[in-house]
């Protein structure tokens, strides 16, 4: 059920072809499966393993290292509230407290309607705009409790659908390498000579 769709298999094969070794496409493919299913399922990891000629354990072994991959059903919206220094100095902890109180859940859990998962997060590279949060990794800056309440109301009302795609979707524009412009990835063992634009130094 949650294997990659036919369309995504085409995308996956395109991605794999860009790397000199297949396994490099592991993280991009797990992202692709998370975009399709909202979280990383066992079947999807088996499918990724088939596509990469590795074992499912290798896929899980790598994927489980990374925080963005979630292995259980996750809210349509994942709200990450930053608690690292700059945000903490500007009230990030209070914002988290407010969020837990308002949503009625503890950080790390999902609302009973399955809409919002709340998480404590570390530095989001927006330190001058503290305190910050991310909804499905889309930044919100200088977040006040009022702004948080408005955000949740907007998410519930569905008015942010254009701005915030469901959890798992990263950039909505994909890289496309046109076939007539692509240099192509060669296995490093198949390359023995330097690139043509580098003059061969005299022996």
């Amino acid at each position: 059920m949650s294997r990659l769709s036919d369309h995504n298999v085409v995308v996956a094969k395109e991605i794999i072809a860009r790397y000199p070794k297949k396994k490099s496409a592991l993280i991009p493919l797990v992202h692709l499966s998370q975009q399709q299913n909202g979280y990383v399922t066992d079947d999807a990891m088996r499918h990724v393993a088939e596509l990469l000629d590795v074992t499912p354990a290798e896929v899980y072994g790598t994927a489980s290292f990374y925080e963005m991959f979630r292995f259980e059903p996750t809210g349509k919206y994942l709200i990450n509230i930053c608690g690292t220094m700059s945000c903490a100095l500007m009230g990030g902890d209070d914002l988290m407290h407010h969020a837990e109180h308002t949503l009625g859940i503890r950080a790390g859990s999902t609302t009973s309607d399955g809409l919002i998962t709340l998480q404590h997060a570390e530095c989001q590279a927006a330190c001058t705009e503290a305190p910050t949060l991310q909804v499905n990794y889309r930044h919100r800056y200088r977040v006040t409790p009022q702004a948080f309440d408005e955000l949740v109301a907007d998410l519930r009302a569905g008015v942010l659908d254009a701005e915030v795609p469901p959890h798992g979707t990263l950039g909505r524009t994909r890289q496309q390498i046109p076939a007539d412009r692509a240099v192509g990835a060669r296995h490093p063992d198949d390359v023995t000579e330097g690139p043509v634009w580098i003059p061969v130094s005299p022996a």
Partner: protein
Amino acid sequence: MSTFNESTDRVVSPYPWAPGYYPSDRPAIVTSRFQYEDGHTLERYLATGGYEGLRAALAKSPSEVADEVKNSTLLGRGGAGFPAGTKWGFTPQGVWPRYLVVNGDESEPGTYKDRLLMECDPHQLIEGCLIASYAAGLSQCFLYIRGEMPLAHERVATALNDAYAAGYIGTNILGTDFSVDIVLHYGAGAYVVGEETALIESLEGERGMPRLKPPYFPAAVGLYGQPTIVNNVETLANLPFIAKEGSAAYTAIGTPTSPGTRMIAVSGHVVRPGVYEIVNGSTTFRDLLYGDDFAQGIRDGNDLKAFVPGGGSAPWFTADQLDIPFEGPQAGAAGSMLGSGAVMVMDSTTDIPAAALTLVRFYAHESCGKCVPCREGGTWLYRLVQRIVDGHGTDADLETIRQVGESICPGDMPHASSERLGLDAVPFPYKMTTICFVGPSAYVPIHSALTLFPEEFEALVTKRAERRHIPVMAGVAE
């Protein structure tokens, strides 16, 4: 920790598409297109001198371009501050293929510059990648962007697609025999992947754990065991200027040992937190924290208590160090480092143990688990500091913190001087028992806080002598 900041009078950047960025009259090398809302498009890039650096580079031989970069003394902007041209020179002769890996995994606490560069001017980064690939003979480039930055993904993907279509990337670039692919790659959330060998592991589809050293430089043995140049986004963004204007124009800005400009994010308790492109080497922390052109002083007229000069991993400075310029060796002699260009400011109202806790928690959380002193020690430090902040600590805990710290960083720990405490500075760097800097970084903030503000910890902990005896179990006779 601090009460929620209710004041809404904080200044907001004039450019909503570049949050936190403020323009100035200073020379702008990498932020020159931030003033345009469409600075990320190919049209705007070409209309403002875009890809002219690449054309200038292609008119020269690769070694001439490499020499130009070497002469510019461009220092890496990722944290270590190593000269980029020298790094390229570490690639062994005659070993092919060679790769370029762009480190866009910006996640050092306080650092906010690479994301802006990717979102506001992605073509500048792409042009930098092309110039580096041409000069160092790199046949494929992997642009590794932190996973938690979808806007940067979209902007860079669009820029790559446009640049491929326009003939700036791919086969026979601009009609020459120079051909290179740039592959966009997303991370998935792991701070340690910012370490260059961990970045390579991650790009190979593995857990992002740093590799055992030696070999010390991926330039010798890197991606797939091949020579690999790993450069930071901001470092590469400087290359179009150097290629177009020449190294002399670059070294004319800044000081001889720290030329050019660099982007610094000032955050925390200042009037105007922001991202500033400063003149390298000569700008001082006082300029940056108090200058009208920069952060405009401490909020609410408060006094400065302490500041982190170079990202969460850097030992802290206090007002005693304000006149130190952005110059690596001087910051090092004073007991800290410039790191990744992140200054976090704490005013007089700051609860120092609680502030240190946020950083210790970060590094404990981000330990990859490969080295025992970091995996066990970082978590241990976090629990000890948490207990002290919660009011349950004892003076024995302070001693344990020092012992755990000693097992991660044996010997003298660098710290700043303090007139108030009569302390002399211990210069950077420290010794370490771990492969990478995540381990020591867990100890650095707590060590700085303990050294510079011991009274705040003393006030929180119970003294052993004052502690009540542990009650004897009922029924056990004395």
